[in-house]
């Protein structure tokens, strides 16, 4: 077990190193941030001055070394656009993203799981078809479109909800629904397929042969087991919702990490993009690591196989 955990931690560290190197190089091939932070036509002197201020005149390996050092010390450097520590910016936005992601996640589970169960129980029936349409729309309609349609309907025509910003529960409804719908569709699909798999298993057949009521078979025997992969996916999705709700946060001017990332990309704010990606990536890596360890604890075959 100790060896297994050591190996998983090693893989995680390697993933983190590759992620940091990739994002460091990727942001730099997208162009020079000074050309975006200065007005077109800025003097040569201003450009050189700004490049020096941001350390972009140093060799690439020195810049990477400084980035790794700043990551290890947890400060992530200063934002080019905001001129303030990235770590402060990240943690200022984190509560907003946590709030939005949590509500969106609850919504997505409340919608996705029951509709997935219903679709699995009534395969080929009305609810299954309705679920497929719902899923298709949730996965294929772009968030900005859903967001703008919601704003037009609930803000412009009905006047019920504020179009943008943060601060009250009313501000949260439309962005949470827009974000939640996409993930509700994903959760619905997984719940359906997982339920179908479980419903076809031997122990469910046995439960039915024993003459248990259908509600008991589905609710107690099938649903509980079918839920495991859904919860695992939901955990990873929560991290994604926190860190990359870029479009939703931009349309609704929600001050979260997704918008910070959007601004970072727009202005080639390297420290911001690097920090958001590496912190978000670290969260996913840590969640995966914990899941791996938990699986190994629960299922001895996994640790023995490895």
């Amino acid at each position, binding site marked *: 077990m100790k060896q297994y955990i050591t190996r998983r931690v090693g893989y995680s560290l390697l993933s983190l190193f590759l992620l940091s190197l990739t994002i460091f190089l990727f942001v730099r091939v997208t*162009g020079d941030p000074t*050309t975006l*932070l200065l007005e077109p036509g800025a*003097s040569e002197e201003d450009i050189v001055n700004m490049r020096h201020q941001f350390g972009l005149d140093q060799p690439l390996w020195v810049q990477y070394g400084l980035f790794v050092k700043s990551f290890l010390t947890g400060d992530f450097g200063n934002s080019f656009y*905001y001129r303030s520590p990235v770590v402060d910016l990240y943690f200022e936005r984190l509560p907003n993203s946590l709030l939005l992601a949590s509500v969106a996640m609850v919504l997505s589970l409340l919608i996705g799981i029951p509709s997935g169960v219903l679709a699995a129980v009534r395969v080929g029936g009305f609810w299954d078809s309705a679920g497929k349409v719902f899923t298709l729309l949730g996965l294929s309609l772009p968030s900005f479109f859903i967001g703008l349609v919601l704003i037009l309907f609930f803000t412009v025509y009905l006047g019920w909800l504020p179009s*943008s910003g943060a601060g009250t529960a009313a501000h949260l409804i439309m962005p949470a629904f827009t974000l939640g719908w996409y993930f509700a569709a994903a959760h619905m699909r997984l719940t359906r397929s997982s339920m179908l798999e479980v419903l076809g298993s031997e122990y469910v057949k046995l439960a039915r042969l024993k003459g248990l009521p259908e509600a008991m078979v589905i609710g107690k025997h099938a649903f509980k087991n079918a839920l495991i992969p859904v919860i695992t996916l939901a955990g990873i999705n929560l991290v994604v919702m926190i860190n990359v709700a870029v479009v939703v946060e931009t349309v609704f001017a929600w001050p979260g990490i997704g918008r910070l990332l959007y601004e970072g990309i727009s202005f080639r704010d390297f420290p911001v993009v690097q920090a958001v990606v590496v912190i978000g990536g670290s969260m996913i890596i840590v969640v995966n690591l914990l899941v791996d360890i938990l699986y190994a604890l629960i299922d001895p075959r996994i640790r023995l196989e490895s």
Partner: protein
Amino acid sequence: MISRLLLIAAVLVGAATSATAGEPRGKITIAWHVTISPAWFDPSTAPPQITPFGMLYAIHDALVRPYPGQKMGPSLAESWQESPDGKTYEFKLRPGLKFHNGDPITTEDVKFSFERYKGASTALLHDRVSDVEIVDPQVVRFHLKEPWPDFMTFYGTTASAAGIVVPKNYLTQVGDDGFRKHPVGAGPYKFVRHKPGVEVELEAFPGYWRRVPNVKTLIMRSVPEATTRAVMVKTGEADFGLVLDGPDAEGIRRDSRMQVVSSKHASIFWIEFTEQWDPKSPWHDPRLRLAANLALDRQQINEAACLGFCPPAGVIVPRVMDFALQAAPPPYDPAKARKLLAEAGYPNGLDAGEFAAIPGFPTVAEAVVNELNAAGIRVRLRSMERAAFYGAWQEKKLRGLFMTAAGNSGNAASRVDTFIRSKGAYAYGGYPDIDELFQQQASERDVEKREALLHKIQQLTIDRVMFAPVMDLRTLNAIGPRIARHTITDVWMSPFPSYEDIELKP
């Protein structure tokens, strides 16, 4: 010539200002198109962009700055004088001025602010200013190494934020970071709070020298999505929606309760002919360049992309700038364009390759490309990402024809310096006589003679068809029904309102 003592402005506090009427009242919300950066609370790090001035001129004030009725008006300074030799500028502060925290404004603050400045054009200013001499708490002198006719353009307009005065004592106590967290200035509005990524709240400063602001509370809210900004004005969530796209602005215009107002800042689109100095290139022939100019129906482009708010341009220096030549745009004459192409040896038109266009303005780019093609100048629109375009432009890697735009402040001389003279940072080539004229104007202290020189340069760009100017770029802004006076065009070369003069309806 006898040396002159130029009294630029006298104590005319009442003349340029309107009388204040009572206490500030009400609250307005301004929906910004960008996320407000705390870097804009501190003038010392303001980049060479116009956007930070939308915040700087709310919280801070400068010795000299543009405000309604004044291009370069005495602000914290009640007057200033240029010495007869042009090497010293003496400023006299208004008596009894105070910062928002109650500290008196003295010449110590003026000197401190200039010396800590490290924003746009820092090296230029610090290279040319040899010393800042405090004569007494009210009088300060800037000594230049050589006469510099553009000193006040850089010190007293939006060309740089070097003239903005910050409180030395407060800054020394709280440091740069502390200042960005809670800035203190001498402008019409006091900083109240900043919710990062959401909004900045400001409150009227009753002690502002020009007037007591009409509106008590200003909320500057960051709303990056243009459609959302337009919706906010429609629903009353915001009173100003800055920088709208054409279709959103059209929706606002159709609603009689609201209005669309265009800015009047110094921004302009034009086409570059990068190969005109290459004798082997077809674009070396001025007839082709003229044909491209005549192919553009500028008014149509303006209607399509800008709802008719962006006036067609005849020269690449924006008309609102000092020393700009007020040149009529070339006529739209596609028949003559085709005739010129035929005369130049291209009776069946010319394949001119890819046409890069500044990103963010697809309607303008498509309209220009369509009209060039219709006249026989066959170009293919090349889509480029913002950073890639700016990088290629700056490094002079764009070839053939491309359309660009620039919106930095300054005057005609600064535009010639950057885009027209042969050594300009963005110029693909140039002409020796224009370079010579540029050198002459740089040391010419007689304003009329200098203007004549700069006009001559601009006329030469027209005569030689160096560019194809398209139109001035005006931002479209939505104004909500509660606003009686928006003041969005009242600050020279700024697309932001004169905050203290905004009026709400009773």
